[in-house]
């Protein structure tokens, strides 16, 4: 088993520009140390229609209400900053916002994984002897020989599809056949409950025993820490 760069194609070149946008890095940095409720604020706002920050503050009394940390408190400042970048993403238009959201989840996963282990890489293929290489690269990989990992990242549960599960499952099986250790998983910026509904619908004959599922509520597990 070895890791390699995918062949560059048009989609990758366009998407690389999104991935390199400073807004993606800023959002990921804020979300890496956020609470689950702050991450939910980001999800809702980036998915939403309203561009009025006050409407979102009202929807999240735990972050902005009378009992929330006061302005000037680092937790409150982070909530405000997350709201600000999320509204910037929402303001990009439907197609762009979808790409930004995906890139943000990938960058977030990369940051969280890097807090626990490494080396962490993006957009990499996994190659096995005698096995045709997969078309789609993995979003984030940990290329540690003794304990490699491959993660696909999704903005929402709806992004979990059978082909994604098959690719992860195949990689795990091929690694096992070569006597290598490979942890495979999905990082989904959505509720675990919704992801489980999706998995039941999509998994078909794919065995999920070896698939890790990390959802919005438990993203800190990627960093090897308990939820903030």
């Amino acid at each position, binding site marked *: 088993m070895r890791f390699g760069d995918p062949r560059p194609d048009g989609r990758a070149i366009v998407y690389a520009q999104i991935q390199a946008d400073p807004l993606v890095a800023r959002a990921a940095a804020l979300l890496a140390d956020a609470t689950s*409720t702050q991450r*939910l604020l980001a*999800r*809702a706002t980036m*998915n*939403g*229609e*309203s561009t009025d920050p006050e*409407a979102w503050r*009202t*929807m*999240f*009394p*735990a972050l902005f*209400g*009378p*009992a929330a940390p006061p302005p000037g408190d680092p937790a409150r400042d982070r909530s405000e900053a997350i709201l600000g970048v999320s509204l910037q993403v929402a303001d990009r238009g*439907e197609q762009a916002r979808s790409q930004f959201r995906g890139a943000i989840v990938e960058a977030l996963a990369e940051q969280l994984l890097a807090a626990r282990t490494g080396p962490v890489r993006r957009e990499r293929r996994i190659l096995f002897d005698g096995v045709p290489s997969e078309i789609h690269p993995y979003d984030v990989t940990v290329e540690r020989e003794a304990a490699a990992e491959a993660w696909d990242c999704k903005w*929402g*549960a*709806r992004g979990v599809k059978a082909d994604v599960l098959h690719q992860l499952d195949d990689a795990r099986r091929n690694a096992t056949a070569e006597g290598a250790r490979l942890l495979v998983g999905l990082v989904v910026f*959505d*509720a*675990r*409950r*919704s992801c489980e*509904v*999706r998995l*039941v*619908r999509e998994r078909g004959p794919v065995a999920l025993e070896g698939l890790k599922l990390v959802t*919005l*509520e438990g993203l800190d597990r990627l960093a090897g820490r308990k939820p903030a």
Partner: protein
Amino acid sequence: MPIPVAILVERALAGLDVLAATAEAVDDEWQYVTDLGTVWRARLGALKEARGAETAPDGAEAALDALVAEAGRIEDPHRAIDWLSTFPQVTLAALGEAS
């Protein structure tokens, strides 16, 4: 004026119904939309059962009103599918519950 959790859960369930009706326009996802609605209605129903008589936390009523209004603005059925998951999570957070 204090308001019980049960009333706010009822409002949330009505908001969820509106989203589900919008999302059902995506034929390929009909079963997923149905299943998603079922599990989240059950979660909100369980909350109502457990804490319905309690007074809702400060800010929860305004939060739910704003959230239901936001759900009502969703016209795109694909976005409504995303919101079918997001909406109940925000509802639970406003009422001081984990997902």
